[in-house]
């Protein structure tokens, strides 16, 4: 299996080292502001883009565990549920509170970010708890434990009055915006890419390739596995929290085994270990049903076929997995990133650190 080249520190640069880390963030902010301005009067488009964004966060974060560390986790929707419910309950309770020294809109956003982070941290705690069994379990067994964990979360939520039981939570303030979603998309991707390039990432890759050998080389395998779980579930929690703040209602039905599998399909399609692959697959698979629906309506297949798109989606995902594994088991990009497979005439970044 091919691994990315080891990053080479770049000595010559016009930007001082202390600023270089901040540069991506400083570049992202105006772009996101422009994006928000463009999206401000297109409610369906901004909803769709938010869903795409949430799925990107989920796929990229799952890729840290499934792709980079090789620990097959199939309970990602559980972490998403933790983030969504914890932050949703928090926002519901803080709905009528405002910081007096700020304007209402700004104060709302502050509370929103706080509840996002709390949701993410709660999910990270759960990730820690799930990561711990990986001290003892490997491979298939660990996959089953993550699956069981996701189902347990769902049942707990379904039976807790504070979480609205099977009805779910409604009336969560809709404070999320596409710009906010994409800011977290940006952060997730940044963290994922930084991990790949770091010595931390080397250890994760080593565990993925051969756990026994990695341990023999002195890699603290359990420590790294637990850390991968914590980071991944933190972002899944954030994604869930974002989701809770732009859909009108969240209920246990949104976070089943099926949702987990949807995320797994995205990661597998993109290529286990490829961050850009996960982004592209998540975008493609989220927009595919919408595209099919529009296409069928355009072709004049009124009603029947256009309505069946959602029904057809899941069997198609299943067959897609089978065909993909038979024809191209490494996914679209394998462990490579998109710039590794672009044609030669497109100018590339320097090799190594992305």
């Amino acid at each position, binding site marked *: 299996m091919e691994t990315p080249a080891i990053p080479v520190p770049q000595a010559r640069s016009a930007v001082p080292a202390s600023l270089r880390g901040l540069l991506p963030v400083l570049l992202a902010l105006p772009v996101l502001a422009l994006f928000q301005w463009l999206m401000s009067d297109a409610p369906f488009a901004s909803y769709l883009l938010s869903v795409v964004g949430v799925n990107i966060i989920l796929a990229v974060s799952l890729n840290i565990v499934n792709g980079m560390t090789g620990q*097959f986790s199939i309970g990602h929707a559980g972490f998403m549920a933790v983030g969504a419910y914890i932050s949703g309950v928090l926002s519901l309770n803080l709905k009528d509170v405002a910081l007096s020294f700020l304007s209402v809109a700004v104060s709302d956003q502050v509370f929103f970010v706080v509840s996002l982070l709390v949701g993410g941290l709660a999910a990270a705690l759960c990730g820690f708890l799930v990561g711990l069994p990986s001290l003892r379990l490997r491979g298939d067994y660990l996959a089953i434990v993550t699956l069981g964990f996701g189902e347990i979360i769902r049942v707990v939520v379904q039976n807790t009055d504070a979480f609205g039981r099977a009805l779910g939570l409604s009336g969560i303030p809709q404070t999320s915006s596409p710009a906010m979603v994409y800011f977290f998309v940006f952060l997730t991707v940044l963290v994922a890419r930084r991990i790949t390039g770091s010595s931390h990432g080397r250890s994760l890759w080593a565990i993925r390739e051969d756990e*026994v050998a990695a341990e023999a080389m002195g890699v603290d395998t359990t420590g790294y596995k637990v850390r991968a779980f914590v980071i991944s579930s933190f972002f899944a929690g954030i994604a869930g929290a974002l989701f809770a703040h732009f859909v009108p209602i969240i209920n246990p039905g949104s976070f089943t085994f099926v949702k987990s599998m949807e995320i797994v399909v995205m990661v597998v399609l993109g290529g286990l270990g490829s961050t850009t692959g996960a982004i592209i697959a998540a975008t493609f698979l989220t927009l595919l049903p919408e595209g099919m629906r529009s296409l069928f309506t355009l072709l004049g297949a009124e009603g029947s076929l256009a309505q069946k798109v959602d029904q057809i989606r899941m*069997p198609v995902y*299943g067959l897609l997995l089978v065909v993909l594994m038979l024809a191209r088991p490494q996914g679209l990009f394998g462990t490579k990133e998109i710039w590794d497979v672009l044609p030669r005439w497109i100018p590339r970044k320097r090799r190594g650190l992305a």
Partner: protein
Amino acid sequence: MAQLLQHLINGLAAGTIYALVALGYTMVYGVLKLINFAHGDVMMVGVYMGYATAFALGRDMRSSLLGVAVVFAVAMLGCALLGFFIERFAYRPLREKPRLTALITAIGISFALSYGFQLDIGFLPGAAPRAFPEVIEPVEWLVIGDRDVVVWNWQVISFGIAVALMVGLQYLVFRTRFGQAMRAVSWDHRVAALMGIPTDRVIALTFMLSSALAAGAGLLYAIKDTSVSPLMGLYVGLKAFVAAVIGGIGHVQGAVVGGLVLGLVEEFVVGYAASTWRDAVAFGFLILVLLVKPGGLFGRVAAEKV
């Protein structure tokens, strides 16, 4: 006391069915080291085959002994065929690939089957659950006291069928040449091939056997539950898988014990605690067992080769 006895009986009846489905998981895992995620969905397809057959037979026919035998035979043979095709076209090409690829394929097949059956296009049945026809007319077989404990005939029959199937399987695996070949392939399929064992054929037969078992178990489940739906495979399959892992996957007696334990645990949760917590308790129990014994109750954790 009577209540306890009743729960024990119900738990055992449910447990034997889980055990039968779990046996299919365990056999395939033992031979191929593959978690056949699609096993539960093969079971579901078998139940629908039985459903269609029972309707085709008509009302009088299906409650006779011959009718029941025909329903079971059609479903089991149909599923054996389905299992053969799945193995041939989805798993065999991946045999030398990393185990994860086969697992993902299995999940894909599971989704294609369970959600494919939810469509209402052509002959597909649609998402709504349906009432399973009364193949075995329910009769109270044994009543103790003032209806304190009731044992239904279908409980006894399904217990009997399950035990017969298990004993048969035990005989097959440990007393026949085919069973010997299965165990050899399970031990090391490359060396088995060198010793002249037709590994492909053994694996295909194991798949067909496990699929047929799934169909039989699924029919027993449908008789108990009186309803069929395309998603039943996903959930019953998951439970049976939990049972297999609890017993130590790849271990025949372990699957039986795991199934019985899971059936009893679930029955007691429903009886003495809240029924809505049933699934959580099943998975919680699984995690607990794995934490204490990572290989399951009967399994051993194999030392990893470097």
